[in-house]
């Protein structure tokens, strides 16, 4: 087989693997694929409505744009790029650590630089493909409302997708060199989790500190930012100009993205093999536990709780996820701090943010404790009834959420006791709802399968998200329009009841 033919053959193999992995993420088991694809199409169609609400008003924008318009569009594109970068870092890390076929590849007589070039291209392709899929409703809205010139926004998505993949590879390989393979996995996970949210949160923090509002646009459209913005012909505005239909700039952008990816492939592909070998060499690196070995007494449930807390504390996903949740809580915490000095109606916004964060974190924690049991046989053969095992695990979720959110609610009590009580109730109800959904849809899985927890039941994922949003809205309304809170609460309870009704654990 010639070198070109081998490359094509391996590219086909990689695309097939990427496709199947993507389908597994979407559909879970094989039999559900058709239904999952139909659901995805329906979901994409429905997404056009919120897309219209968010972006419809920008459809009439025409060149030449003024500075505030350029800033808002550029910031939005940068946010999308940051999210793609986050996903790409995770994909690159998986290539190094999920070593299902690396032994085979490394022991084969194939040219490893070529093999890893194809693998880098596959990462870029999957990141860009996912970005295209998610951006389609938004671009569609712009095309329908503002004309075909907005089709060039797809080109911008491709260009930033390629560059995000290229930068992700550079960052990950740099992390390998700087901190070594054993720490890179955790750090890369944290970087990936934080990087997407970081930009939005930074804008919110700036908005709160400068204008006392959670709105990011207050900062982006301010005179202060415009004053620091570069000239209108700066390359910084190229993505924005390309998005509204500047064909020449778009072709420069796409060429730039391809060039960047090509350069990364040329520089890093020959070193990938070396990196993989280093990862393999440290795969059995030793991590020590505490030297103190005194066994603790207590009940059987206490043993279970202690084990769960220990595992949660040592879970890298949870660390990155908690960091992200805590980052999301920085803006409301800042709002709270400002409200001590000056009375602000915006403080009401803190309640839904806290309740939503609690619901989301509780969902993840509940999956890890209830479904993610690595020694399922051991726990199942232990001499205690399953109900007590479940109870101990739910207690762990409640205690963890309590420890994380109690300080914030206590601080809120100094600003408004009523709002603190409502927020506390919202956190409790959102946490119990998330735990209940995970309990009704529980499956036996390894903790390491957390990334794919959504595929075990899409219904549970949606129910969890809708309940978090519902309880967040109910809590916010309880502070402002109590009668509306009753309706919102009843609707959310209805969602929960329907979820229970159709759950597999109902019997």
């Amino acid at each position, binding site marked *: 087989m010639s070198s070109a033919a081998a490359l094509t053959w391996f590219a086909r193999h990689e695309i097939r693997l990427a496709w199947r992995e993507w389908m597994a993420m979407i559909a879970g088991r094989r039999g559900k694929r058709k239904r999952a694809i139909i659901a995805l199409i329906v979901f994409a169609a429905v997404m056009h409505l919120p897309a219209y609400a968010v972006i419809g008003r920008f459809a009439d924008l025409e060149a030449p744009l003024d500075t505030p318009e350029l800033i808002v569009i550029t910031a939005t594109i940068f946010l999308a790029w940051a999210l793609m970068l986050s996903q790409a870092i995770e994909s690159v890390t998986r290539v190094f650590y999920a070593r299902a076929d690396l032994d085979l590849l490394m022991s084969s007589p194939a040219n490893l630089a070529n093999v890893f070039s194809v693998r880098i291209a596959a990462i870029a392709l999957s990141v860009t493909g996912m970005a295209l899929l998610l951006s389609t409703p938004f671009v569609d809205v712009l095309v329908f409302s503002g004309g075909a010139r907005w089709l060039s926004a797809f080109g911008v998505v491709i260009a930033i997708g390629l560059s995000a993949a290229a930068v992700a590879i550079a960052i990950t390989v740099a992390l390998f060199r700087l901190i070594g393979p054993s720490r890179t996995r955790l750090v890369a996970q944290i970087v990936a989790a934080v990087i997407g949210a970081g930009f939005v949160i930074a804008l919110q923090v700036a908005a709160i500190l400068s204008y006392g509002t959670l709105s990011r646009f207050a900062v982006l459209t301010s005179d202060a930012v415009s004053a620091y913005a570069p000239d209108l012909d700066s390359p910084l505005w190229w993505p924005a100009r390309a998005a509204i239909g500047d064909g020449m700039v778009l072709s420069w952008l796409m060429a730039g993205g391809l060039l960047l990816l090509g350069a990364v492939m040329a520089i890093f592909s020959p070193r990938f093999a070396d990196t993989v070998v280093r990862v393999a060499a440290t795969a*059995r690196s030793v991590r020590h*536990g505490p030297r103190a*070995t005194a066994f603790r007494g207590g009940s059987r449930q206490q043993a*279970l709780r202690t084990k769960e807390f220990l595992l949660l504390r040592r879970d890298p996903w949870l660390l990155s996820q908690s960091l992200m949740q805590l980052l999301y809580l920085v803006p409301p915490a800042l709002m709270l701090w400002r409200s001590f000095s000056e009375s602000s109606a915006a403080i009401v916004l803190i309640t839904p943010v806290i309740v939503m964060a609690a619901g989301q974190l509780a969902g993840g924690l509940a999956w890890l404790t209830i479904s993610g049991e*690595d020694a399922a046989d*051991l*726990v199942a*053969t232990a*001499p*205690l009834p399953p109900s007590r095992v479940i109870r101990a695990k739910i207690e762990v979720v409640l205690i963890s959420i309590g420890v994380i959110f109690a300080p914030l609610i206590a601080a809120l009590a100094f600003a408004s006791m009523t709002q603190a009580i409502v927020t506390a109730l919202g956190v409790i109800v959102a946490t119990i709802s998330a735990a209940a959904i995970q309990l009704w849809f529980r499956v036996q899985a390894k903790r390491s399968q957390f990334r794919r927890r959504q595929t075990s039941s899409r219904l549970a994922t949606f129910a969890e998200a809708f309940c978090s949003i519902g309880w967040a809205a109910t809590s916010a309304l309880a502070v402002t329009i109590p009668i509306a809170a009753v309706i919102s609460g009843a609707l959310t309870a209805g969602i929960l009841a329907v979820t229970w009704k159709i759950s597999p654990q109902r019997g």
Partner: protein
Amino acid sequence: MVHSEQLDRSEIMKADVPALEVRGLTKRFDRPAVDSLDLTIRTGEFYALLGPNGAGKTTTLRMVAGLLRPDAGSVSILGIDALADPVAAKQIMAWVSDEPMIYDKLTPLEYLEFVAGLWGVDPSVSETSAHQLLVSLGLEPHLHERCEGFSKGMRQKVALAGALVHDPRLIILDEPLTGLDALSARHVKGLLQERVRSGCTVIMTTHILEVAERMADRIGVIAAGRLVAEGTLTELRQQNGRGDTSLEDMFIALVDAEAAAA
């Protein structure tokens, strides 16, 4: 943990109450996996359950351990009805699967502390026995290392130590020697024989017929969910009219005969 006073095995095995009594045990998936199985294992006995792949060995043992609900039949463990009172039955039993299920983020000592806590063992007792077990299995240098970097053999030894730390009276092992090197396998076999000498009952499935031949007091051969032969090695030879043949030859002949009959 192991009783210092070694009991007289013949006396233990004569005990009225069998360690395990299974009657009419049945489990169907797409086809019958276990088909009205009757099995009696005496207290203090080392029993090897053999059979080809898919014969129903693991399904049988998983039902005994309370991991699968049988479609029909009864399971009695040292006189306790395991289906009516599973908690009491589990208190005196341990299960080790062929795929060691332990927690990557715990050290072997932390794992054993957790297991001992689940079985309600006094910490002062379990701490000492945990150390002894891990040392006897050659894991002393790794007591404080997280299990995430362990080989399959090391993980299997940690799982086995977990099964023994609460001093069970019935130990059920599904292919416990898979993935172990010769030295580790010898450690494990020694530990199990020591337990049997102290009055514990061991039921083990294995594909290594030599192990069954050397270690088991009695051997049961299961095929298509049914017990097709049972007895000591000598009894099996007599039943098959092959005075000096090896267990491997007998096993193949029994399985072939069963396949031909089906």
